[in-house]
């Protein structure tokens, strides 16, 4: 069986050499080329036609995401695995948008990288375990939508206060606007949030958006 051809695009020399040694040691795969910036990465991809490109996202000249975009346009049969040291879902989104089939944190175990290479070479997609956890626990998902779970509808005044809260007014401003005391605003706010089982202003904003108050 022919070995999988791997192109290694990583600007940090020591890391690149370490990866190369480990990949060459693994069965069924071999590093056929190296690149230390984004431009070289896609030029070598065209020239060497590897099966999989390991692409560092932060590289000089052309960053990894843009190099990935170019490769997916010019050589659609080549799969790209994005490599990054940043624990931020934004990088994951950026890589997937650019057309990467896999995404692996540099801190992940090497076995995961081998898994990733084999999976994407077969046409699958791969996200390392730590990054999967990031998506599941991303703050946007934490603010899961809740609603009138307690079955007690809001009073008219409470709706008024909640929608002003959602539109960015402070308690003091709401008090001035409705000509009531700050204490009253606070108690309307607390009661409404209790009724709707909302724990924070962020959840109030989500709820208000759902109700069309914003």
């Amino acid at each position, binding site marked *: 069986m022919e070995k999988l051809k791997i192109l290694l695009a990583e600007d940090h020399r020591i890391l690149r050499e370490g990866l190369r040694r480990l990949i060459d040691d693994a069965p069924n795969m071999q590093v056929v080329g190296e690149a230390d910036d984004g431009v070289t990465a896609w030029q070598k991809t065209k020239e060497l036609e590897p099966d999989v490109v390991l692409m560092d996202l932060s590289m000089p000249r052309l960053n990894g995401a843009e190099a990935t975009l170019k490769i997916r346009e010019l050589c659609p049969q080549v799969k790209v695995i994005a490599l990054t040291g940043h624990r931020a879902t934004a990088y994951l989104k950026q890589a997937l948008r650019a057309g990467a089939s896999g995404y692996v944190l*540099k801190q992940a175990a*090497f076995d995961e990288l081998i898994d990733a290479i084999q999976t994407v070479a077969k046409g699958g997609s791969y996200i390392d375990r730590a990054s999967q956890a990031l998506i599941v626990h991303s703050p*946007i998902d934490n603010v899961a939508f809740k609603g009138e779970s307690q079955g007690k509808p809001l009073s008219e005044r409470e709706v008024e206060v909640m929608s002003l809260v959602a539109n960015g007014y402070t308690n003091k401003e709401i008090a001035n606007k409705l000509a009531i005391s700050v204490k009253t605003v606070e108690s309307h706010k607390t009661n409404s949030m209790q009724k709707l089982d909302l724990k924070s*202003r962020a959840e109030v904003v989500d709820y208000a958006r759902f109700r069309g108050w914003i």
Partner: protein
Amino acid sequence: MRENSTLYSKLVNSLDGIVWEADGETFQFTFVSPQAEKILGYPIKQWLEPNFWRDHTHPDDTDWCAAFCLDSTQRRRDHEFEYRMIAADGSIVWLHDIVSVKTEPDGRPCLRGIMLNITKRKRAEEELRKQSELLQKIFDNIPVMVCFRDADGNVQLVNREWERTFGWTLDDIESHNGDILTEIYPDAVNHRQARDWISAASGEWKDFRSKARDGSIVYTTWAITHLSNGTSVSIGQNVTERKRNDDERQRLLQRLITAHEDERRHLSRELHDNIGQYLSALLLGLESLARIPELPTSAVNQLSYLKETTKQFELDVHGFALELRPTVLDELGLEPALSTLAREWGRRHDQRIKVAFNSTGFENPNERLPFDFEVAIYRVVQEALTNASRHSNAQIVSVILERNATRVRVIIEDDGDGFDAEQFMSGPVDTHRLGLMGMQERVQLAGGEFKIDSGAGTTIVVTIPLS
């Protein structure tokens, strides 16, 4: 007839004035009412002596009064005039004399009149004159610009300081074709603001960028109030010097912040791109060592310990870099950076706090905000989360980031103890307050507005307009 005369004498006696009758040629009194004695202090008998009037008028008034009376009498004309007499005690008494001229059957003129004591009025007038002279002196010499406008907003009067500041004199304004405001505020926006400010006449101060006659730029600040008759008075000061100092201070502050941020970015990159990469390489090396077949158990254990230590080391380095200056902020922008900060906060800084993050208007990752705004907002959120962790006992902190065509806004609200924000900001300077002041400074430098409201929890609202 008798009743009438009683009524008449009552009336005459109640006046603060003297009813009199005199010969039209000699001006000798033939009758004076009893009030005369009270007002000037001379006995009635003395009044009826020849030349009494002439001898007791004020020396400065004697000649013109005599001439005026003589002339009017010769023409048989009723007349009235104001003059001074010297009272018995030497004091000056002002009189308003109303005189009617009658011709006797023998053709001689006869004078009848009433002298009203107007001393009080004259004193009040004198007082008023002194006051207005004082006001005039102040008006002329005070280093504050004063400008009166009529109800239509046309300039009626300006003082010397106004003339000095702008280089236009009141005469120039009067002979100027069109509106002087157009000269002072050539910029259309400034001009409209100035007009609005004049017609609003709120009494509050507002700074304006204005132009002097010689073309130089003058920064002025104005407060305008309406007077009761619909006219208005504008009080202004030349604040060019202050404005220059403020600008200079702002520039320095901006440079300081930029230098600070550059340094942090440099360190962060160094940690992340250099040390971080070495650590990743080190981990890979350890992995490949662990793959060597038939290693003794002690070596396997030692390798796994080294791997764990390196991983922890790498996490710490990553954390330091994130705190100094997150790469994601530079590379991907504010929204991903705040999202990461919100997620990492609970894990890295404070297990008791959960940060709920929520954003709108950032759907297109290529539409980045101006970089200064991104950094300013990021630092404000970082500081606000630090405060919530240290001072508030909060459990949940919301970070809400919203952007539309005209502005970007971030709200940070915690459910903690809260404090009296107004009192706090004027209280003693400690690190907490310095932090808030720093946030405020940064937001203002970016041209934004910083609001804090604290009671049940603390809410910080930062709004930066996007032009």
